[in-house]
């Protein structure tokens, strides 16, 4: 029997003044599934995720999280979702431990879970370091740790590795791969790094100009590329970037 999707998006539209950010997106995510929403800057990724997070209201269409809409279920849904926004700054002069304790208190979670999380994100040595003194990678790990405090059923990460160096990026990936192995948390990850999507996710949604261009498993999507005329790829491995170029004529990081 097919399990109920944790997230279901049905024909969602969203506009800002004259810009149509999201134009009729349908999406279904199963429990434990890691989904990458891939697209260039301005594709509508963040708007879509913000609507799923309940921060933005769609102009039309429906969004169900764990079978519930945001209206009337906000408290329950906030407890089952963990998220990390693009470029969040925490309180500069709180240390790592204090920041975790602060956010844990919002979920009525005690010190025990904070200890687990600080180990998971490998910031034990930085426990007493002020947030302002952390490196970009350490801050992003802290943001990820905060998103994981409540053992979320759904984890939403908005470009979690943008601006990080390759090592810091791999550290984030390692934490997420461990999570994938050990829990049934579903992940929605927005990124414009195809390598990140390939490494972490088993289902890819490629969007551009507010529409889904293509979605499927990595092998399925890369299989499709053989049917599309692209530049010669025989000399190297075919990537999602090739697929994106074939669909839009542009690179993902354009």
């Amino acid at each position: 029997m097919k399990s109920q999707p944790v997230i279901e998006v049905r024909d969602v539209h969203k506009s800002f003044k004259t810009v149509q950010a999201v134009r009729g997106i349908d999406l279904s995510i199963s429990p434990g599934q890691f989904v990458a929403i891939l697209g260039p800057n301005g594709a509508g990724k963040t708007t879509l995720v913000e609507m799923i997070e309940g921060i933005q209201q769609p102009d039309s269409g429906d969004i169900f999280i764990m079978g519930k809409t945001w209206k009337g279920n906000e408290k329950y849904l906030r407890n089952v979702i963990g998220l990390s926004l693009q470029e969040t700054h925490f309180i500069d002069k709180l240390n790592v431990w204090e920041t975790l304790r602060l956010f844990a208190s919002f979920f009525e979670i005690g010190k025990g879970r904070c200890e687990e999380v600080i180990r998971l994100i490998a910031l034990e040595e930085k426990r007493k370091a002020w947030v302002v003194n952390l490196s970009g990678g350490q801050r992003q790990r802290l943001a990820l740790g905060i998103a994981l405090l409540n053992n979320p059923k759904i984890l939403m990460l908005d470009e979690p590795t943008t601006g990080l160096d390759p090592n810091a990026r791999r550290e984030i990936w390692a934490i997420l791969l461990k999570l994938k192995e050990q829990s049934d948390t579903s992940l929605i990850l927005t990124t414009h790094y195809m390598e990140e999507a390939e490494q972490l996710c088993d289902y890819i949604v490629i969007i551009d100009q507010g529409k889904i261009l293509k979605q499927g498993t990595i092998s399925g999507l890369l299989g499709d590329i053989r049917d599309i005329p692209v530049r010669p790829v025989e000399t190297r491995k075919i990537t999602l970037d090739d697929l994106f170029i074939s669909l839009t004529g542009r690179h993902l990081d354009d």
Partner: protein
Amino acid sequence: MIERLSNSQLVQLILANVKELIREPGVLFWGIIFPILMSLGLGVAFTKKKDVVTNIAVVGQNTLANQPSVAPSVLGSFLLINKASFEKDEKGLAIRKFTVPDDKLGSTTFVFHSLAWKEAMELLKRGNLNLVLDEKSGLLRYHFDPMNPDAQLTYLKLSKLLNIHGPAVKETNAEIQPLTVSGTRYIDFLVPGLIAMGVMMSCMWGVSYAIIERRSKKLLRRMVATPMKRSNFLVALITVRVLMNFVEAGLLFLFSWLAFNITIQGNVAALLVLFIAGNFAFAGIAIFISSHTAKTEVGNGLINALSMPMMVLSGVFFSYHNFPGWSIPVIQKFPLTMMADGIRSIMIEGAGFAETALPITILALTGVIFFLAGMKIFRWH
């Protein structure tokens, strides 16, 4: 119990705000040390008697020479009789000094320089001289800018002295009774104003700016994406600010009491209630002005646009009765004016609840109205 309390989101939010506050050295300086320094500086400047040195150019004759001239002048006779001292200035030129001692109003030392008219005019233009004096046929002539209060004062003092022939200078002014009793000094006027201003600035920057900055950094949005109660966030922010304001005002009062013997003449309970009402008013206004913008530049402008006029007009440093009559009823309705006047009436005039009930009510209502209006349009994202 303690574990449960330490896991409470309100307690954690309050702790976070306290830690953020005390870890910022600027907050301690501007919030606590600066008002004390200001009260010290202004209190000393306007409360203690001041010894004055006034420079006078004497032109036209050598009245300052070691020996009196053949035909003694009015000034020469005066200096001779009163045994004015002979000294040299930094250029080695002869000067004569005469001090009128006064333990109540402060001593005045007259320094007489013998100068040519042109040189005297140059020094007068540079502000190095207060007055130029010359004498013709036994008639003293005083040259000074009538718009310059220092020059006027010098003229009044000197002309009085020179009209008294002989050693008639009195050691004391028995007829002058300077008002130095508690409640009538400038410092008594200043400290309540500084306390009220401290509350306003602290709420404006500590609440408004903190909210706008958190919104601009997306921290507000991140926090409300959790089950955090939104009211807890605001309650924690305001509570910490009010506590900080109590500490600031308490330290300022303690300092003023030790340094200037300032006391509270009226009802202390009424003062506390008024203080809380004032905090409430400014916290409400702070929530209102920070309710929408996510730009710290806009926030800066809004805070300054609101607080600067009140700082200037509300009689923090000097009485607002110096402003035109038509503006006074308007000024009196500003929250800062109400708070400063209320604190003054309790501290200086011995007022109690009966006299301060109206400002307390208006300040509290101002807080409620602005808070509710702010919450109506508040942007959490």
